[in-house]
């Protein structure tokens, strides 16, 4: 009550009685091991009384600590019951010394408070490093099925691709060769043999070929798709078409 600042700080400002005791010790620049318990107890009780005056709710922890402090203070006023035996450091009385216990608790609590401070700083630093939301890998996970590969691929796209390949070397398309059915089954077999060695692409299959052969390849691929023998996939419109063997289980 003597110090005006007392009125500015309420019990609510503290994380608990230990926090409040640390505040007294640190603001008076005291050593935890040299705390004059009597003085700290007086300060502590002054705060409690102040809180009562303002009809603030006092958490039970603060009352428990008050009892501890008063017990320690009372004990310090009494003469020592047993003389400390220097040859017996495990003295029963020393082990149960509540003042020593309190000092150890304050020390431990202060250490964790310092860690909390470190964490607070690290939290701020880490927040400066921002990532992006992940992209789902699920679509890549399962071995895709025919319908996955063909999703969005329409025959008109295939047609566009073949027309583009055909017009790459020559301006006009000779439609008459499309009727040459004889070579399509042969071409289908050749493509299947190629695929048994590994997947390929439409551009690879038609590289350096005559347009008649290209059309045959194209028709053979359409037939193989229809027969569910191969899987085709086109990443982009007018892009290459990936072709692989459909695994039959």
């Amino acid at each position: 009550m003597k110090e005006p600042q007392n009125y500015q700080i309420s019990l609510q400002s503290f994380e608990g009685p230990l926090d409040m005791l640390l505040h007294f010790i640190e603001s008076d620049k005291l050593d935890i091991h040299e705390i004059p318990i009597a003085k700290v107890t007086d300060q502590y009780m002054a705060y409690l009384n102040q809180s009562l005056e303002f009809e603030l709710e006092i958490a039970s922890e603060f009352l428990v600590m008050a009892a501890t402090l008063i017990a320690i203070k009372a004990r310090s006023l009494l003469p020592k019951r047993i003389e400390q035996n220097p040859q017996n450091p495990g003295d029963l009385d020393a082990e149960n010394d509540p003042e020593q216990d309190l000092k150890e608790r304050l020390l431990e609590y202060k250490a964790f408070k310092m860690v909390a401070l470190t964490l607070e700083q690290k939290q701020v630093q880490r927040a400066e490093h921002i990532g992006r939301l992940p992209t789902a890998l699920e679509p890549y996970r399962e071995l895709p099925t025919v319908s996955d590969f063909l999703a969005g691929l329409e025959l008109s796209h295939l047609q566009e691709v073949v027309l583009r390949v055909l017009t790459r070397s020559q301006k006009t398309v000779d439609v008459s060769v499309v009727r040459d059915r004889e070579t399509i089954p042969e071409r289908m077999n050749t493509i299947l043999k190629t695929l048994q060695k590994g997947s390929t692409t439409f551009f690879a299959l038609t590289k350096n070929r005559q347009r008649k052969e290209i059309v045959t390849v194209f028709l053979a691929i359409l037939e193989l798709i229809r027969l569910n023998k191969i899987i085709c996939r086109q990443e982009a419109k007018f892009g290459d078409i990936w072709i692989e063997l459909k695994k039959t289980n």
Partner: protein
Amino acid sequence: MDRIEENELTSFDSLAILEGLLFVAGTEGLTDKQIADVLEISESEVSSLCHTLAVKQQQEGRLFRVMQIANVWQLNTVPALTPYLRRLSLVPAPSSLSQAALETLAIIAYRQPITRAEIEEIRGVKSEKAIGTLIARGLIMEAGRAEGPGRPFLFATTPEFLDYFGLQSTSDLPPIAEIERQIRQNE
């Protein structure tokens, strides 16, 4: 000569692939094993590859960088970009943890697995609310039950705890005994 160029190309490609993979993994990041499996290299080579990528990113003046946090490699922006991200409100509003939550978390980090009663013993106050917040934020989790009466829950930190504070492992924090020793000495 040809051979050197080929090697350079390969190494350049793995860096580009690595960056692409990390880009896709986003905040989830990738473990040594995931990267090693995809790039078909040994796990022991991953760290050096990631560091090479970080150097490359820095040299090219890019504002995101590969970094290892909580045992995963992830791409994150560098602080220089933060003012611009703020302008776009792309930076999540700061939501720092309360003092109570930070204290509770500090205790759990060092003493895990630990019961609520043990935490409250150290802090000298009830800590139920702080524990609840930390669980909801995914920073701690229930990790079994303690022996003894009531078999109370034990709490431990999660990998997200490490990520949240940018720690590699809990051993990145100074030993608590060391901190206590410093406090004693400074007095």
